[in-house]
């Protein structure tokens, strides 16, 4: 597995798109810091971008890589390696190289700016952690799609749809149902609905770190308990689940699939 990981990582790290992605974050980081000197404000702006962008890039890269590496995968399948390791290695290769672009692309400008000495280091680190989680989650989801759809155009369509649903449409339905049913106690439903969308989950996690917990707790005791108490741990646990389950599914599919 490590060999496969190493090679697909090396392959991706040298691809033009990785550099474009890295450069994007570098430019974003530097320009945000240049435009406003307030670190914590920058972290908030970055959150808005990271929470939407890392899932999108994870989805697109995951699906593109697996479709374009189809024949290479077949070559690997003919080698004396376990199937599971081939797919796990390739998946980790993509997810790691994308995460590296994220961490370096944002980390370098912030390090130069001196975040290491600032109190925002934890918030920033948390943001990177959440971005990495989202990369791993959405790469796994898109690999699942590519394994289950031979037709590239269809697969690509499903992947984009998945992103669109989780990034925008889910929240729209969520918001409308909250407003429609506001005669009922909604706090449990709200928390549950948040758990079922990794993007919402990540956004809430970063917001919690950014001191907006009081704002969220404004609405009631359950929220307050959740957001000021165990919320961080439960949410992190859910993110781990969101990573592990799609990976398990993709390995299951990979082991049973014909090439």
């Amino acid at each position, binding site marked *: 597995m490590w060999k496969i990981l190493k090679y697909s990582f090396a*392959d991706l790290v040298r691809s033009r798109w990785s550099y474009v992605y890295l450069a994007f974050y570098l430019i974003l980081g530097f320009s945000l810091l240049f435009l406003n000197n307030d670190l914590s404000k920058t972290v908030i702006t970055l959150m808005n971008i990271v929470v939407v962008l890392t899932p999108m890039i994870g989805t697109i890269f995951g699906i593109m890589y697996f479709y374009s590496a189809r*024949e290479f995968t077949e070559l690997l399948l003919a080698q004396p390696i376990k199937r599971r390791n081939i797919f796990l290695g390739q998946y980790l290769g993509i997810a790691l190289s994308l995460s590296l672009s994220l961490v370096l692309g944002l980390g370098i400008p912030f390090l130069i700016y001196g975040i290491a000495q600032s109190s925002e280091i934890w918030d920033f680190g948390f943001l990177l952690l959440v971005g990495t989680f989202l990369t791993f989650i959405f790469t796994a989801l898109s690999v699942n799609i590519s394994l289950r759809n031979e037709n590239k155009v269809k697969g690509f369509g499903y992947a984009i749809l998945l992103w669109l649903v989780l990034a925008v449409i889910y929240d729209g339905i969520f918001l409308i149902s909250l407003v429609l049913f506001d005669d009922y106690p909604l706090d449990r439903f709200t928390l549950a609905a948040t758990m079922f969308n990794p993007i919402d989950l990540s956004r809430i996690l970063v917001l919690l770190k950014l001191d907006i917990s009081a704002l969220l707790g404004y609405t009631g005791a359950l929220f307050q308990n959740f957001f000021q108490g165990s919320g961080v741990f439960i949410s992190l646990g859910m993110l781990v689940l969101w990573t592990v389950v799609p990976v398990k599914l993709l390995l299951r599919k990979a082991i049973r699939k014909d090439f």
Partner: protein
Amino acid sequence: MIRIENLHKGFGKLKVLDGVDFEIGSQGVVAVLGPNGSGKTTILKTILGMVIPQEGQVYVKGDPVLGEYTYRDQIAYLPQIARFPDNLSVRELIAMIKNIRGSSRDESELVDRFGLRPSLNKKLSSLSGGTKQKVNIVLTFMFDCPLLILDEPTAGLDPVSLISLKELIVEEREKGKTLLITTHIMNLVEELADQIIFLLEGKIYFQGTVKELEEKTGQPDLEHAIAQIFKNDVEDTKI
């Protein structure tokens, strides 16, 4: 060497293999023939473990291999289309496959034979289809595997390389290896094949030598023999 028992495989409603049994005991070149969609590639891929059958078992050297993976170091596979990671160079790709197979073979002789030395440091994405196929051939023949599976090995090759490939196949046969080949080029079969397996509608229609096939169909050469089989097949379906 290989024994296949009662292999069934369908993709959705389409039945590709419908109870295939055969055994290849001796060494030599075995040509797997059949019309398009008769399941040639599916059989090869089942042996490699890339396609998972609904029923049946594959034995390599007497051991069942479905779900296993270590037996694949006995097999070298030349796929139909050669596609590699874009950002690696030829040299890196060769090193990588060597690394994966845990082998320290010397590929320089093969590289020279196919004139690949100038391309060693080029990225795979910048190579032409034919050159990629040559890289593919090098990767297949550089490991000293007792079983070689070649799926349309001549695709995209120039005449010079085609001759080199034929020589290579002959050499391997003389070393006592087993080669499973699918191809549409009948010359190649007549020239090289010790045995023919002819697939039709997911079943073995014929297994034997070229001569036996010619005798069976009463035709002067292989091309006509095969044409005859196709014709019969069409008439069968008419009835």
